[in-house]
C-alpha cells in the first residue's frame, strides 16, 4: 500500500532522474542526487499542499544537484551567476545561424552539456520537461523575464556553438526541418 508521498512523488522518478542526469552529467552522481532529493522531498512533504508534484519534486532535485556541484567545485568561481555578464551581445548585423538540417554529426547534447548550469537548466526544463516560462521561474526561482532572457541566450549559444560543425547545405529544405 503506497503512502500518499509515494503516490504523489514516485511517478516522477523518471523526470527526476532525467533532470539530474543532464545537470550533473554523470550517472552515478545523478543516481545519488535523485535518492538524496527523494529523502529531502519526504521530509518536506508535509508542507506540500497539492499542486504540481512533479514541479515540486524537480525543484528539490535541481537544488540537490546544485549543492552537489558546489561541493565539488572547490576552485570554482566565487562570484554568483550574473545574467548580464553572461549575455552575448546580440548584434543586428549578426549573420543568420545555419539551418540544422545536418545535425547528425554535431552533438547537440555536447553543446547542451557545455552550457553554464544556469542556462542548461532552463533549456532542459523547457525542451525536455516542457515547462512554461512561469513554471520554470518557480522551479529555478527567478522572475519570468529572467527565464526568458536565459533561454534566449542559451539558445543563441547553442546556435553559435553548433554553427562551425554544421555542414553548409547547397539545397536547403525550405521548411528548415531537421530530417
Amino acid at each position, binding site marked *: 500500500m503506497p503512502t500518499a508521498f509515494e*503516490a504523489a512523488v*514516485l*511517478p516522477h522518478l523518471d523526470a*527526476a*532522474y*532525467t533532470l539530474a542526469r543532464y545537470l550533473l552529467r554523470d550517472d552515478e552522481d545523478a*543516481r545519488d542526487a*535523485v*535518492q538524496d532529493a527523494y*529523502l529531502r522531498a*519526504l521530509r*518536506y512533504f*508535509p*508542507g*506540500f*499542499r497539492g499542486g*504540481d508534484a512533479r*514541479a515540486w519534486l524537480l*525543484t*528539490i532535485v535541481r*537544488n540537490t544537484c546544485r549543492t552537489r556541484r558546489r561541493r565539488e567545485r572547490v576552485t570554482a568561481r566565487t562570484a*554568483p551567476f550574473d545574467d*548580464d555578464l553572461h*549575455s552575448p551581445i*546580440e548584434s543586428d548585423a549578426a549573420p*543568420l545561424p*545555419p*539551418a*540544422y538540417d545536418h545535425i547528425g554529426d554535431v552533438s*547537440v*547534447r555536447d553543446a*547542451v552539456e557545455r552550457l553554464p548550469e544556469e542556462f542548461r537548466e532552463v533549456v532542459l526544463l523547457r*525542451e*525536455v*520537461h*516542457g*515547462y*512554461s516560462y*512561469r*513554471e520554470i*521561474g*518557480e*522551479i529555478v*526561482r*527567478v*522572475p*519570468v*523575464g*529572467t527565464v*526568458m*532572457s536565459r*533561454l*534566449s541566450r542559451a*539558445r543563441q549559444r*547553442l*546556435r553559435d556553438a553548433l554553427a562551425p560543425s554544421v555542414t553548409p547545405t547547397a539545397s536547403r529544405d525550405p*521548411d*528548415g*526541418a*531537421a530530417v
Partner: protein
Amino acid sequence: MTSDAIAAMTCDQLAPMLDPFLDGELDAATRRQLAEHLERCPRCADRLARSRALGVAIREQCPALSAPDDLRRRVQAAIRQDPSTAPSLSPSVALPAAPSSTPRAALDDPPTLPHPRSRQRSASTPWARRAVPWLAAATVLLAVGGGGWTLGTAHERALASGAARGIGADAVRDAVVASHLRSLEATNHLVDVVSSDRHTVKPWFDGKLDFSPTVVDLAGDGFPLIGGRLDYLAGRPVAALVYGRGRHVINLFVWPIDPGSADGGAHAAVTGTAMRGYNVRQWDAGGMTHWAVSDVAAPDLDAFVRLVRQPPVSPATSAPEPR
C-alpha cells in the same frame, strides 16, 4: 505595447520574439500579428524554422530518460526506511503550498528577487526593469500560460483546398501538419471529447463519422490518451485521436483509405518525414490511413507508432503520469 506595434517593428526587433512564439508564451493578439508577419517575411520564417529545428534537435539528443530499475528500488527502500516517514514532524519543516513554497532548506542561496507568485505581465515590476533592453519589448508581451502558437494560415488554406480536390500525399501531409498546429492553437480546439478512457472516446465518434476508429490505451507506455476530436482533412471528416507525451501532444489522424485516390492503400509500411520541425509518420492498416504528427523526438514518435500498430496485449498497470 499594442499588438499593432508588431506591424511597425523591424525583423531584427521581432527576432527576440520568435523563441517565445514557438514556446507558446505570446498572447493571442501578438501571436496572430507575428504569424501574419511570418507569412509575408521569408527571412523571419527561416529564422523561425531554424529555431524550431534547434528545439527538435535538443529533444532528440537529450531525450527524457527512464530511471534505472535499481535506482527505483534504491529510492523506494530509502523512503521506507527513513525515520521521518513518521507523521510527527517538527513545525520548522511545515511549508506553504508548492511549487512556490519549495523547501527553503533545499535552496542553496536565498532568492534575491521577488518570486513571481502570480501571472505577471507588467513592465513596471522590478524584475522587468532588470531585463536587458532588447528583451524588454518582448517581455511585456509575455502572456504567461497562453498555450500554443499559430502559423501559416494562408499556407493551410491553400493546402486544405488542394486536399479537398484529392491531390497527392504531400498536400495531405501538409494539411495534417496544419491541422496539428491548429489543434494546439487553443486548448479548446485540441479535443472535442476529453477522456483518457478509450471506451469513452471510441463511442463518441459514432454517428459523427461513417467509420469507427480503433482507439488504443497507451497510458502504461507513456502515451496517455487525452481525447478525441472531429477534424476535416483531405476533403472528408476524420477522427483525430490526441495523445500526450509529457507536455507534448501527438495527433493521430485516422480515416478510411480512399480506394479511388492515387496513393490509396499502398502504404502498409510506415513512412516518416519531418516538416517545419514536426515529425510525421504515415501508414495504412485495416483499411484505414493513419497520420501521426508531433514535435516529440523521432524515436518517441516511432515508439508511439509501433504501439498503435501493435498495441500491448494487456494494458500496463504502471502509475499514470498525471501530466
